[in-house]
């Protein structure tokens, strides 16, 4: 789950919603169970776990995860530029604004993206994109969306946990 906004409130809300870890932009304070999003690799090793994120497909080589807004358009570029263990992130907040037809298409794209990740060694990531606790999504709703696109939610969370441990273990951190 990757969010931005009031972090402390979101952490307590996440615990209520059955979410163990959240992702957020670094605001100068290290908080337990938060994985920080950074746009570029830090100049010196930080003291907190982080992921390098991008929403530009051309800069996937440096990124741990890339946010995809339109998978249909991005698919061809990803086929050429996809690197092993790259996370492909899809944001639910964007789908909320879509029409019923748009959401149906988006769910279809998620299904395709999951198969693409399976075949290319990438990691499928579904995020809330929340900016406040009232925009967060409960674990049950995440599971329901995963089931709707034909993904076994238990397996997905296990894969995501493994991916996260793998990616974070490769980072140099200051103790």
């Amino acid at each position: 789950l990757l969010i931005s906004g009031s972090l402390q409130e979101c952490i307590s809300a996440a615990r209520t919603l059955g979410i163990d870890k959240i992702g957020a932009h670094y605001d100068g304070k290290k908080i337990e169970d938060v994985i920080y999003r950074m746009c570029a690799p830090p100049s010196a090793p930080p003291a907190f776990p982080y992921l390098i994120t991008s929403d530009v497909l051309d800069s996937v080589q440096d990124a741990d995860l890339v946010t995809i807004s339109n998978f249909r358009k991005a698919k061809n570029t990803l086929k050429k530029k996809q690197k092993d263990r790259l996370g492909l992130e899809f944001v639910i907040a964007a789908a909320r604004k879509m029409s019923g037809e748009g959401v149906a298409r988006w769910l279809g794209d998620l299904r395709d993206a999951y198969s693409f990740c399976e075949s290319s060694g990438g990691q499928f990531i579904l995020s809330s994109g929340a900016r406040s606790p009232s925009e967060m999504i409960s674990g049950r709703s995440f599971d329901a969306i995963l089931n709707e696109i034909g993904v076994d939610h238990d397996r997905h969370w296990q894969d995501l946990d493994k991916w996260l441990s793998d990616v974070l273990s490769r980072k140099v951190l200051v103790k």
Partner: protein
Amino acid sequence: VAERCPVAEGVGEIVLRRKPKKRYLALMHGGRDVDALDSLTKRCIELFGHVVVEKAGLRLMRSDDDIIIVRCRLSQIHHFLVGVALTDPPLVAVDMSANIGRLRKRRHS
């Protein structure tokens, strides 16, 4: 008799009129309770159709400040949860229970 010894539903067997199982969901919202339920129902209809929403039997049971308790049939709960995640303005499924009393107790504790 039927209530005491239920049998499996199927071809050639007696089909009992059992009460469908329900779940009560506490949903956090930002506006009026009726608007929250309306937007959720509308979204579920857009995504899954009138038949599914009718089968779900959505009903507003209680409403506190920013929390509504909505009843839904268990058979359609996954559709309902997808609808909750994809509704605008946003709704958050805070808790779920088969028993409304237990849900309220948990909310207050």
